[in-house]
């Protein structure tokens, strides 16, 4: 199948990725080839099967309701691209 540029833009927007116009054609062509590979899934005899999302036991383990994490605020501030007064800085969202 061939991926339309409009679909690629929609998907990129969902994935919060920007695709440079000069890379669009190559990305659409490569993704079309990969999606072509997926067509064979339609041939697999799976209609009666339940999906398997995880190879092991899917039940979540419970843990004791105790605090295990230490305060690592300084550590996390140190690796942040932009901080001020304990807040992560981003461009203004509300005028």
């Amino acid at each position, binding site marked *: 199948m061939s991926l339309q540029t409009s679909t690629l833009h929609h998907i990129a927007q969902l994935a919060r990725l920007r695709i440079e116009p000069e890379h669009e054609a190559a990305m659409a062509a490569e993704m079309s080839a990969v999606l072509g*590979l997926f067509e064979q899934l339609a041939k697999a005899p*799976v209609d009666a099967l339940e999906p398997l999302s995880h190879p092991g036991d899917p039940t979540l383990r419970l843990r004791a309701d105790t605090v*295990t994490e230490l305060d690592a605020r300084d550590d996390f501030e140190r690796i942040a691209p932009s901080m001020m007064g304990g807040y992560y800085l981003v461009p203004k969202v509300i005028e």
Partner: protein
Amino acid sequence: MSLLSLLAALDDGSTSARAATENALDRAARHADLNALITIAADAARAAGDAADAERARGARGALLGVPFAHKDVFCTRDILSTAGSKMLANFVPPYSATIHDKLQAAGAVLIGKANMDEFAMGSSNEHSHFGAVRNPWDRSRVPGGSSGGSAALVAARVVPFATASDTGGSIRQPAALCGVTGIKPTYGRVSRYGMIAYASSLDQAGVIATSAHDAAIALNVIAGFDPRDPTSVDAPPIDIDGALAMSLAGLRIGRPRQWCGAGIDAGVANAIDAALAVYAAHGARIVDVDLPSSEHAIAAYYVIAPAEASSNLARFDGVRYGHRCANPKDLADLYTRSREEGFGHEVQKRILTGTYVLSAGYYDAYYHRALKVRRLIAEDFARVFNDVDVIAGPTSPSVAFKLGEKLADPVAMYLADINTVSVNLAGLPALSIPCGFSDGLPVGLQLCAPWWQESRLIGAAHAFQQVTDWHRAVPGGAA
């Protein structure tokens, strides 16, 4: 020097941890053209080597006390750069360490550096690294395989006796095969994923690459074990190494899947696999042909499921809390999209987009939901075959190491390099690759796969083979 012989030399005092560390650093420098290390932690390694010697002088004997090793750069190491091969994390110094790093530190192992890898472990050739491609020590014009290409190249060039690695669709076994070393991917849940930078969480599993099955088992038992910080960690008994070493091949039932050995396998690879299975047969194993009919759908299912999980996992890289941030964002959307576009390489972007596509409205049922059903079909195939055989054997990779650049332009050809490895991850099974011969002067890997938690059987079957063959002792020219 193998891990075992180094431990013996450290124990009898004929070498020191500092000398072993200097040797590893020296070899890393001499093999710098492999581009196998992103970070070399020379000063910290020397200090750790000296500390190990001091502990040994006090009579201590940690399982790996004084043994140099390298981490795949997918594992977080506190205060040491951890990049996952990505520009996104090119300056990321984690505030915490992976559980397996803590375990290796506790056992006294000496970290010499962080190994190059395909970006976020997405690749089968180690060409998708922000830090450049890794070269194969057997032929520097060829790929080492991926995504743990740096780990495999370092062990093949005998820079370190073992390296950590991770395997989502073959990323331990395939580079081990292409570099002529031994790599084991444990059962899903045996090794903690805490602090391992995530690609596809239901498939990712950490393991080791070493020069023999015995060495790999020693290192694996150090990093394995229950970890409350990983919700998918399982409290399984450790690998019974002594039992594995004593295992006899007599009567071992080895299944040879027709689907792993058919069209698409290079003749030279097929010949080496046949010869290896003949060795097993000569030592009493019974080789039986088996069928894994759903294998033909494994690549498609894997390349739906893994990118779907990746698109979710990699959503965390938004330029806000850590990692790459674009300059002068004009608004919040621009900050997200441009930071991600600049920080992720082409292959990673393609997989995020593919994953987003298969999860999006209108395509979810046809692709993602259906791929999960195929996953069950594949797991049931294995379960049925393991009613009749003890292990499954076949080629790890359909070809030997290919040329750098050869498959870069054709993503489907690149994905098909994983044809014999991805189904094992979809089912969560343990598997390893051992060197079993050469084709055109390049190493061939034999893949062995066992039922859940049967790593001892895998190690035993691989060790028995390595007792009667020398393929694992072969070293690339100039690396002796």
